[in-house]
């Protein structure tokens, strides 16, 4: 019984991916592209050789973290659309520490990541406080905080950290997550040690939520504030805490960009999109830690693979956006996937 459930749990997403690709293929066919060639290129571009594997993993790291941020808040009954803004302030904090502080790597890297986490946490805590204290809906405040983060970080870079090229200086070697070793084994991909940070964060999220009294309180408040209050749990504190932890994950996602992928921060003319992608990753992963990691792998892989699909088969990268959307739809409508799976398995038997 339990076993069968687990099997279905795994089959639904797999089947959803299949259906998403199938419909994506039909769209390609209708619009005059060659689906097989495109998908071969897509797959090649995800995991076809060490270089692409490196890029896919690199793309995963911030996605895992922004997905965790959304998922964590979701688990405690909050919808954090503000991951984007928390990511930006985390990015800036990490780069600031990376540029201005002198320290050995063993101190510098954790310090810079910590700075990102704290910055993200503070940024996330604001909507938490507003919700706990004034009952303001977190969806609006997090959207507003995104814009505030975008303009403020740009202004801070412009006034205090500007280097030629509309960006900050590179972070010091000692604060960098980049790894010549990882790059060399992946034929000079941008792969860096951030993935380790992201995976540790996933374990932390799981552990926090499911193995600690703090997680017990957070989940209780997420499900039923009245009962939590009755049980002696401080509801306001937990709302703020939840948003702060969510923001911390988002902030660390920013440090992936600042210490790993780019080594600097640019003046952003628009949002990075990583925060919004995090919503999709969290939902694909059913808000569980392991699900988020897998969701990020799929999402990141498809996005990287799309570049190769464009390059080799000439199919616009946007098609992958359509496929991702379809996959999310099918995961969400697991009902219809179950139904189709039943049809298929029955048909197979007869």
């Amino acid at each position, binding site marked *: 019984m339990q076993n069968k459930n687990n099997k279905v749990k795994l089959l639904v997403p797999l089947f959803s991916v299949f259906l998403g690709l199938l419909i994506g293929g039909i769209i390609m066919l209708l619009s005059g592209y060659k689906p097989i060639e495109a998908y071969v290129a897509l797959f090649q571009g995800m995991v076809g050789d060490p270089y692409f594997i490196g890029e896919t993993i690199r793309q995963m790291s911030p996605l895992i973290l922004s997905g965790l941020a959304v998922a964590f808040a979701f688990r405690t009954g909050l919808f954090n659309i503000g991951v984007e803004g928390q990511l930006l302030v985390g990015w800036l904090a990490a780069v600031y520490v990376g540029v201005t502080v002198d320290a050995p790597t063993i101190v510098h890297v954790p310090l810079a990541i910590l700075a990102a986490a704290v910055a993200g946490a503070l940024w996330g805590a604001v909507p938490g406080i507003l919700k706990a204290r004034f009952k303001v809906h977190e969806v609006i405040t997090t959207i507003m905080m995104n814009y505030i983060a975008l303009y403020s970080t740009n202004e801070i870079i412009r006034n205090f950290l500007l280097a030629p090229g509309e960006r900050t200086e590179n972070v010091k070697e000692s604060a960098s997550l980049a790894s010549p070793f990882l790059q060399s084994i992946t034929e000079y991909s941008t792969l860096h040690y951030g993935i380790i940070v992201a995976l540790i964060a996933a374990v932390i999220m799981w552990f926090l939520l499911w193995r600690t*009294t703090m997680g*017990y309180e957070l989940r209780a408040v997420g499900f039923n504030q009245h009962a939590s209050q009755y*049980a002696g749990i*401080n509801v306001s504190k937990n709302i703020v805490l939840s948003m702060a932890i969510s923001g911390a994950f988002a902030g660390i996602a920013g440090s992936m960009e600042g210490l790993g992928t780019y080594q600097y921060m640019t003046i952003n003319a628009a949002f990075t999109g990583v925060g919004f992608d995090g919503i999709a990753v969290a939902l694909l992963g059913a808000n569980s830690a392991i699900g988020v990691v897998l969701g990020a792998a799929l999402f990141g892989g498809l996005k990287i693979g799309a570049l190769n699909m464009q390059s080799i088969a000439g199919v616009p990268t946007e098609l992958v956006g359509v496929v991702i959307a379809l996959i999310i739809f099918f995961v969400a409508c697991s009902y219809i996937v179950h139904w189709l799976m039943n049809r298929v398995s029955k048909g197979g038997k007869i």
Partner: protein
Amino acid sequence: MEYVIDMRNIRKEFPGIVANDNITLQVKKGEIHALLGENGAGKSTLMNVLFGLYEPEQGEIYVKGNKVVNNDPNIANSLGIGMVHQHFMLVDKFTVTENIILGKEPTKGGKVDLQTAAKEVQALSDQYGLRVDPYAKVEDISVGMQQRVEILKTLYRGADILIFDEPTAVLTPQEIVELIQIMRKLVSEGKSIILITHKLKEIMEVCDRCTVIRRGRGVGTVDVKDSNPDSLAAMMVGREVNFTVIKGISEPKESVLTIKDLVVLDSRKVPAVNGLNLTVKAGEIVGIAGVDGNGQSELLEAITGLRKANEGSIHLRDKDITNKSPRSVTVSGLAHIPQDRHKHGLVLDFSVGENMVLQTYYQKPFSTNGILKFSPIFDKAKKLISEYDVRTPDAYTPARALSGGNQQKAIIAREVDRDPDFLIAAQPTRGLDVGAIEFIHSKLIEQRDKGKAVLLVSFELDEIINVSDRIAVMYEGKIVAIVDPKETTEQELGLLMAGGKRGTVNAE
């Protein structure tokens, strides 16, 4: 055919359970027909089938002699069937009138004609003596009035067959009296009523016939005048049931709870508790009798730390717990079976096991240094589940999946097991069947006999009189009288609860 309703061999399954198994129910025109059964026996399910909310897997339904296929409340409405649901089907933010006309709105030029509608509602409510304020918002009116709105909804649609699913579970004694009068009036106008209730006394008082079901199967239909509460209970449970609570004499000792001059404001900032004094001693059960809305909820919330006390003091033994947090009050030795089990008592999406440690999860052995220890938690839960006979597949099942009665047992298990000095039980048996009530009452008395102080708040005068050692009557935020249950009657209590005076009243 003489039956207005004739349901034959109804079968209704839910995933993994047969809720109705070959049940037959026949209702005569102009009668009040009781439907009796334990919690989860399948009463509501059967009525929902009749009302067209569920489609049965098997069986036939005849209404007024015609076979019907009824898979939509619209069809039920047109057949003249109306239902007052166990959980009210009212839109809180709408007015009384809006709730009543919903789905069948009178219009004038495409616009809902609220004025005409309100007039109609007023006329209807006058006709049957169902006092309602057509313009009041449902969230602002009493539960009793909400129920009258539910009844008006069915009458507005011209129903002549009415289903009442546990209407009295949420009413005060006065409201129950009114409801019974209303039902009589309805029947006298030629309407037929199906009444679901766990209160055998009510069945004896108003019903003509009674159909009993047990675990989804029909046990039989009897004429009420040929039966008595004991026989009905035995039919329903399948064994003899004790109604009179067996308890020894109480031996009160030192004061455990002492409340002095307490003032508590309600959410509209009006004093709901207004200079209240009360003591509860070790080894006694004090029952608080009172009409809903006289400050009982606010009193309990102030004691438990959920609401701020504006004046006065509350002591638990020697400890001042006035305006302390719920956590520190709990730690001081208070346990609380809350009035609303879904809102306060349980985190419905947590497993039964997780709910069992709702106040103790942070203590040893359930956690150390902030890390949860699951085996002690679930060991504890399993022990409580078997000790208190909580019917659940296992400790890992979400609390949501349990029936109300079993949810209540789980709460009681958790609260009593913490071995508190002082136990508050608010409406502990609301909506439960007689078997479950019996169990809960015996647990309360067991606590008393162990030397604990118990405060029981209930709108059921039966319960108050049977279980309490002392009764405190609460009226307009004060304790207006303390009476001895052995020396009082329901009539006297009812009078006091309505603000009447008794010779010498000494609120200690």
